[in-house]
Each structure stands twice: as structure tokens, then as C-alpha cells.
């Protein structure tokens, strides 16, 4: 079937992409001053100890050898051991990846469930008071810095009202404890992409409502509500679905600040800490994870897009 060939074509592209991402990352890592050996040894340790530690971590090998081992090991599926924790990188990453995915998914769900209806209503009641109110709200939504929202949420919900805990993860979201812990960070993440989704749904809905086939639908005598839901909504949601996918990828990469502030054990924070600690295998593993998730999401978005819009062929 054409779809399978299309998916294969996209997946084939992942191999060179991983290779390129690896190389770029390796270049960056060699340029960064300082190394982990200095951190592990106490500041008072003499240079010989640091040399010995570098020896053990394999940092003394010539750059080319390190690079080749570094790149080929990914394709062998062995991401190596973290310098600090001495645990295999894959073990650490799996848990953290799931936490981040969980946080971003809940955030995204809140944004979508709230965003799409708001956008549709704003489009239907165009230029009414409601529409103007939504538009200004959206403008503020995309202008406010994320860390400000987070600090304020911690201050208000965490401290003064004390409704929800502000740190750590309380377990999977189907337990009440897990839910209590995820609500605040998810709400903050939702706030930035909620504005984007509302604005996009509104503009794509306005486009669709000005199309000819909406006029045809009305000329058949259908109720306005039916025209909106059956005819307009489906067409309007196609571009929205694409952007939600892209937004998810974008958000997934940028949860560092949220995870640091809410002490959420996600992969964003792991990357940030491992860069600070110069833990090369962990950095490489985390960035690869994020890049892979990004690619898979883009592929999913395209497939959903093709599935929804019958006009486009898989070429």
C-alpha cells in the first residue's frame, strides 16, 4: 500500500539524521571547556588523579577514536554508561523519557481540550465581545514568559493556597497522588500552547467558513450548528492537528525550565544537568531521545494529516 512505502521512506531518513545530530553534538561537546574528571575528583586532588580519572572514562583516547566509537555505538544499540551514575544510559533515559512524555501529553491534552472549543466559538461569534476578549487573552497568553507563570503558580497554588504539591512526581497519573503532582506543571505548559491553538483554530475556522461548500451546505437548509460541526469543523481541524503535532515536538524540547522549577524528573532537566556535569554519554543519549521523539512525532503528524485529508496522495 502506498502508505507503507511513504513511512519506509521517512524512516530511512532517520539514519543519516541521527548520524548528523551525533556529529554536531560531538563537535559541540569537544569545544565545551572543562570535563567531568575535575568534578568527580575533589578540588584539592592533584593533577595525576584527574589524569587517572580521565583515563578510566576514556577521555584520553585520541579524538578520532572517541568519535568513531561514539557514533558507531549508537547503531550497535549500546549507549554506554553514564560517567556519573555508572549506570547504563538507556536505563536512566527510559524512566525520565516517560516522565517528560507524561507531563507534555497531559499539558497538551489540557491545551487541546480547552483550546479547540474556544477557538471555534471565537470564530463563530466573530468580532463579538467574546471574540475580542479571546483574542486579547491569546495575545497575553503567547507573550507571557513561561518561568513567570511557573513562579507565580508555585507562589499562589503551592504556597499560599497549598492545594497542590509543587515538586517531584507522585507516581503515574491514574493515581490521585500522581495527578496532584502533575496538575501544576501541566497547567503551566498548557498555558503557552493553549494560546497558540486557540489562535490557529480561530483563523483556520474563519478560512473554512468563507469557503463555497459552506454556502452549499447552508443552501441545503441544514441548521447552522450542523453546518459548523459536520462541514466546517472537520476541514478546519486538519491544519490544527498538524500544528498540535509540531507544538508537541516543540514543547517536548523546551520543558527544561518547567522541569527545573517544578523539580520534575524529566528528560529536559536530565539534559540540562548532564551538560552542566559534562556527562557525555548521558548528554548524547538524552539529545538523541529528544531528536527521535521529535522525528517520530513529525512522522505521526504527517500520517494523521494524510489520513484526514483524502485529497493528498502519499508522494
Amino acid at each position, binding site marked *: 500500500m502506498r502508505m507503507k512505502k511513504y513511512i519506509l521512506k521517512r524512516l530511512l531518513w532517520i539514519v543519516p539524521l541521527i548520524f548528523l545530530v551525533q556529529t554536531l553534538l560531538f563537535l559541540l561537546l569537544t569545544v565545551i571547556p572543562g570535563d567531568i574528571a575535575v568534578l568527580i575528583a575533589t578540588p584539592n586532588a592533584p593533577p595525576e588523579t584527574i589524569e587517572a580519572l580521565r583515563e578510566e572514562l576514556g577521555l584520553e583516547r585520541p579524538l578520532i577514536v572517541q568519535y568513531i566509537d561514539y557514533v558507531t555505538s549508537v547503531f550497535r544499540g549500546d549507549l554506554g554508561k553514564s560517567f556519573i551514575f555508572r549506570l547504563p544510559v538507556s536505563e536512566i533515559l527510559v524512566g525520565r523519557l516517560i516522565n517528560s512524555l507524561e507531563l507534555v501529553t497531559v499539558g497538551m491534552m489540557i491545551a487541546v481540550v480547552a483550546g479547540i472549543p474556544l477557538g471555534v466559538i471565537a470564530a463563530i461569534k*466573530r*468580532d463579538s465581545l467574546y471574540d475580542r476578549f479571546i483574542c486579547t487573552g491569546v495575545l497575553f497568553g503567547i507573550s507571557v514568559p513561561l518561568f513567570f507563570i511557573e513562579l507565580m503558580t508555585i507562589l499562589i497554588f503551592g504556597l499560599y493556597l497549598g492545594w497542590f504539591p509543587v515538586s517531584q512526581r507522585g507516581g503515574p497519573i491514574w493515581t490521585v497522588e500522581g495527578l496532584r503532582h502533575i496538575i501544576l506543571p501541566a497547567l503551566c505548559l498548557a498555558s503557552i500552547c493553549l494560546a497558540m491553538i486557540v489562535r490557529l483554530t480561530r483563523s483556520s475556522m474563519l478560512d473554512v467558513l468563507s*469557503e*463555497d*461548500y459552506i*454556502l*452549499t*451546505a*447552508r*443552501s*441545503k*437548509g*441544514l*441548521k447552522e450548528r450542523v453546518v459548523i460541526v*459536520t*462541514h466546517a469543523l*472537520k*476541514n478546519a481541524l*486538519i491544519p490544527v492537528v498538524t500544528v498540535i503535532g509540531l507544538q508537541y515536538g516543540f514543547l517536548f524540547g523546551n520543558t527544561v525550565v518547567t522541569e527545573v522549577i517544578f523539580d520534575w524528573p524529566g528528560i529536559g532537566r536530565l539534559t540540562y544537568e548532564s551538560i552542566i556535569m559534562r556527562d557525555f554519554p548521558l548528554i548524547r543519549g538524552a539529545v538523541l531521545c529528544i531528536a527521535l521523539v521529535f522525528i517520530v512525532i513529525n512522522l505521526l503528524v504527517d500520517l494523521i494529516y494524510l489520513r*484526514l*485529508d*483524502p*485529497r493528498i496522495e502519499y508522494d
Partner: protein
Amino acid sequence: MDEKPLLEVKNLSVNFYIRHGVVNAVTDASFKIRKNEILGLVGESGCGKSVTALSILRLLLEPPAKIMGGRILYKGEDLLEKTEKEIREIRGKEISMIFQNPLSSLNPVLTIGFQVSEPIILHQNLKNDEEVKRRTVEILRQMGIPEAEKRLKEYPHAFSGGMRQRTMIAMALSCNPSLLIADEPTTSLDVTIQLQILKLMRNLRRDVGSSILLITHDFGVAAQLCDTIAVMYAGETVEYGSAVDVLKDPKHPYTKCLLRSIPRIDVDIERLEPIKGSVPNAMNLPDGCRFHPRCPYMIEDTCEKIKPEARQLTEGRLVRCHLYGR
């Protein structure tokens, strides 16, 4: 001959309020269609013929558009007074409409079967899905779409221009309306396919018995299909009469000049006589007779100042021009 007309539009006027100012799209449109008759509403683009058609079914979006005055009598009742719910009853059941561009008039993401069956489900409350499907296939086959049964599941983009227009007509006629409004149905089609559609519409009157309001800018199409013709210019109906009278013996200067300025296939024309100037802008229409700046027969200081009334020359023959007496 003069029992009550099926639809009569009297002095309709419609304005559009947009950011840059007020557009008076239709200032004084009046014509009537008798049962089982085809009326051609002919005029250049921007003369308000589409707006008139849309205002009959009240499909104009209220915020920018506003119907200033006039009456639209359908079977004696004025459509402008009807409530939203009543108008919805009429749309698709009594009066239905087809549009110019078949490419964008069908919803690209819904199947053909679903879109055609929508009015049937709504207006003919048949018992079960099976009956609706049978009726849909029947109407599609009637409109000349081959293997209609198989095509229900397909999407509009798989159809050619002609097939899509046939689907539109099937959709419009699925509830046997007594009036079909066709807004430039064949403009975007090739000549040969245009002929097929015209032939199909001519047979409608015989098979379904519905009268048709055809809106077009092509005199040839109007001549081949319509019984009576109304010519519109800058938002007004300037001439009304039977097809033969209007085309053979046009009275209004605009109709005369227009007929002389179009190339003909059946007559060898040495030199076309174009009408000077261009279509007036609906934001600031010239006062007096709208056509006076471009009219070769303009009478000094009457045509510019006084707005001509629509006078009745003979039975069923109207013209809006000072040349024909006070």
C-alpha cells in the same frame, strides 16, 4: 397567462457595510418567474446578480450584508419576513441552488454519497438508511453519473468538473424543489460539457417540472436556455422581456451595445464596437441613470440628473431608460 408568478422580486436593494465604506451591491432589482419557466438574469460581473440570487434564499451573512428594502414574493409569501426556521424549511425543499465553481462547492473531506443524501435525510424523513441510499443512487443516475452505486464512497477530488456539476444538480434536485437557482453553472466548464449541462437543465423542466432562475454573463447560454431574460447593470434590472424580444430587438442602450460588442460564431463581424469606459465602482455609483457615462444615446441634462423608472412598454416588457417616453 397572468396567474400569480411563482417568484416575484420587487425593488430589492442590498448594501454591504465594510471597513472602507458602504457598497450598494443591489439598488433596484425586480423581475418575476412563472411556474415551469426559465428566467435568465444576465449582466456583467459586479452588477449584483449573484447577490440578488443569494438574498432570495437569505444566504447573505447578516453582519456585512443588509437587505435595505424590496419584497421577494414566493407563492404569495414574502421570504424576507420569514423566520430563520421557516427559511430553512424552504431551502433545499422548495428552492435550491447550485453554484459556479464545482471545484470548491463540494466539501473535499466528505464522501459524495453523504453530501447528496443530506437534504434527503433532512427534508424527506425516509424510514431507514437503505431507502435514503436508494433515493441518492436514483437521483445521481438520473443526472447522468455512470455507476452511481459505486461512486457513493468516493471523494469530490476524484470527479471531473462536469461530473461535479452533475452531482451539485443532483444534490439540489433531490427533494424536487419547484425553483432551482443556478448561479453561472457552466462558466468554468468546457464548451462541450457546458452543452451537456444545458441540455440536462432544459430536460429538468420537462421531467421534474421545476422552474429555473439562471444567472449568467454569456448571452449565448441565455439565448439557448431561457424563456425570458432580465438584464442587470450596476445593481438594477434595466430591461426585462421574452428572450426573443430582448435579444432580437433590445430596447435599452446597454443591451444594444453589449450585443454589438460580443464576437459571434454565426455572424462574420468586421469590427466589434466596444462600450467605452469600464463597469462603475459600487462604492460611488454615478447619479441619474447608472449607464449615462458610457451611453452613446445619452440625452443632455436628463440622463445625468434624473434616475429613470422601469416603464412597461408592452405586456411583460420593461425597460429603464428615458428614451422611451416620460
